[in-house]
């Protein structure tokens, strides 16, 4: 921090020195950038002044044309920080990080989300499954023109569909079981079998 301040101060001092030299040269009509040039760079300049010979009468003391479009005063740290991060007194507390008080929680997974939007936890789960299914459908479909509805068939579900139904749709079979959370009917049991065999583990290293 102190180092930074020192560097900033050093830069500032050098700038001041440079301007002091320019002003001194302008007053004395010495070498370096001629005052006419400096003034021309600063904006509209009367022609008489540009025509002043270098050895002639010194030009009037540098007017405010010299320091146009540069900061006139140093911006205090407080001001700088306020501009950077905003303040309570600003309209709508602009730039400040404000807490959201309108979050609601998902009835399915319990995580928070913004009203009117999707719960990201549930959406990510659905998204990964959807991408897998889309890939399977695209692979099965290829470039053939789709002429029937697509039906997703997970492992162990093919038997439940009779041939007449199977002909009306395009079956896309997946070599995995239907996810527990993706049930066609909420009252219907999913095909995922419940683990019946359990192996008790005896505790060891108790002595």
């Amino acid at each position, binding site marked *: 921090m102190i180092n930074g301040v020192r560097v900033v101060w050093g830069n500032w001092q050098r700038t001041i020195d440079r301007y002091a030299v320019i002003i001194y040269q302008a007053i004395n009509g010495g070498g370096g950038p001629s005052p006419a040039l400096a003034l021309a760079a600063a904006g509209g300049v009367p022609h008489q002044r540009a025509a002043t010979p270098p050895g002639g009468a010194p030009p009037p003391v540098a007017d405010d044309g010299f320091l146009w479009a540069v900061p006139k005063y140093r911006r205090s740290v407080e001001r700088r920080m306020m501009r950077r991060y905003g303040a309570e007194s600003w309209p709508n507390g602009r730039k400040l990080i404000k807490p959201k008080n309108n979050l609601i*929680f*998902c*009835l*399915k*997974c*319990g995580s928070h*989300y*913004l009203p*009117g*939007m*999707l719960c*990201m936890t*549930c*959406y990510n789960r*659905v*998204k990964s*499954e*959807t991408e897998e*299914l*889309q890939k399977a*459908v*695209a692979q099965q479909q290829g*470039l*053939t*023109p*789709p*002429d*029937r*509805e*697509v*039906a*997703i068939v997970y492992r162990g579900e093919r038997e439940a569909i009779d041939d007449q139904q199977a002909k009306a749709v395009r079956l*896309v079979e997946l070599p995995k079981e239907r*996810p527990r*959370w*993706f049930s066609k009917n*909420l009252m219907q049991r999913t095909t995922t079998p419940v683990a019946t065999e359990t192996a008790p583990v005896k505790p060891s290293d108790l002595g």
Partner: protein
Amino acid sequence: MTSQLGRLIPQLRIPVQPKYRPLRNVEGSYGRLKNLRSTVTALVRDERVEMQYIRLDEARGYAERLIHDAILHGDRDTHTMDMANFWLTEKQLIHKLFKVLAPRYAEHRSSFTSLYKLPPAYRENDKGAPRGVLELKGNPFPPLRDGSTDRKHLLHNVLLDEARRQYRHKKYQQLAAEARAALADSSAEPPRRPSGD
């Protein structure tokens, strides 16, 4: 009369912005159309797409209009076929539009698509546009938002479940202790039957 006329005129069943979205593009308005066209094609092909929200919202109207035209006029109509040819860059999807989507939505009385908003991604210096999901109704994928009333993950339900479990556990232990005491009495009568909780 009005109802008959309403059937003839394709109408959008979605809220439409009063002004079209500019969707800036280096190629100008043609680039905008090209983007929208690829979005509509992706929607018809994949039935569910995730993208910038405004782009989806803009493409949604074109997709709805295309499907509605396909339902109303069928594949014999030149204008409808031209539109399908323009909006679907993958030509095998024209079959899908007339053979799959038109029959699917023939009896629908609401919009054919649903649009969802995704929350902003909280990344550092995030300047990304808000995103959304657009899907065709009746797709075979897991639902994005189902009306299930499963509330067992709510915090108070989790706590209540745990309290109930502990209460039951305590009750069983008490009953077991009573039964053990009754056995210890070594009387001939069998141990008292637990009477539930």
